[in-house]
């Protein structure tokens, strides 16, 4: 019941395209859903996060869409750039304990 399932495992997008990563969770007690970006050799860095009382949150080129009834949420990266090439992790949290998805490796081709 603690799992967060993430897809796809890898994604290749052309520069300027839209990258979409999906996550599904099981624990309805989760009250915080962050997305982290991780570059090789670095720790994960918080990108954007949402709470279940809203359906969408946008920060610059990054948007989280949240569907509480389906227990799903997704990250959309608009106008994807080569600098966005990294591994992205979704997570769910309850009482401060983050449960991470398996990660999506994004490659943005010039």
């Amino acid at each position, binding site marked *: 019941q603690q799992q967060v399932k993430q897809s796809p495992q890898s994604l290749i997008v052309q520069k300027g395209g839209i990258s979409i990563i999906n996550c599904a969770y099981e624990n309805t007690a989760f009250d915080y859903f962050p997305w982290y970006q991780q570059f090789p050799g*670095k720790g994960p860095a918080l990108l954007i996060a949402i709470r279940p009382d809203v359906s969408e949150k946008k920060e610059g080129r990054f948007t989280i869409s949240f569907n509480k009834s389906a227990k799903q949420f997704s990250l959309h990266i608009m106008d994807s750039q080569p600098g966005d090439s990294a591994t992205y992790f979704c997570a769910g949290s309850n009482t401060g304990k983050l449960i991470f998805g398996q990660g999506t490796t994004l490659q943005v081709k010039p």
Partner: protein
Amino acid sequence: EAGVVQSPRYKIIEKKQPVAFWCNPISGHNTLYWYLQNLGQGPELLIRYENEEAVDDSQLPKDRFSAERLKGVDSTLKIQPAELGDSAVYLCASSFGGTNTEAFFGQGTRLTVV
């Protein structure tokens, strides 16, 4: 403001040897986490501290792993003895805690057990 600081960045040890990792969280952050990240996987929680108290250590293999957070600031994670399967990146993170669960991660310590 400095972020979460971890040391060492890299460590290579022989199996059955002990090893320790150190973490200095962001100033003012009451919650400290140790995560394990295997290659190609998401981080997995080992232990979470609220100030000096370990509030979630259910995933910590207590037969060989131990952790402490003296004075509610810095923390150390120890493995004794290390096994080949312990090779991974050990990440420390911190947050203000309470309803603020925004966690900031350090760069991690990459452990290789040979």
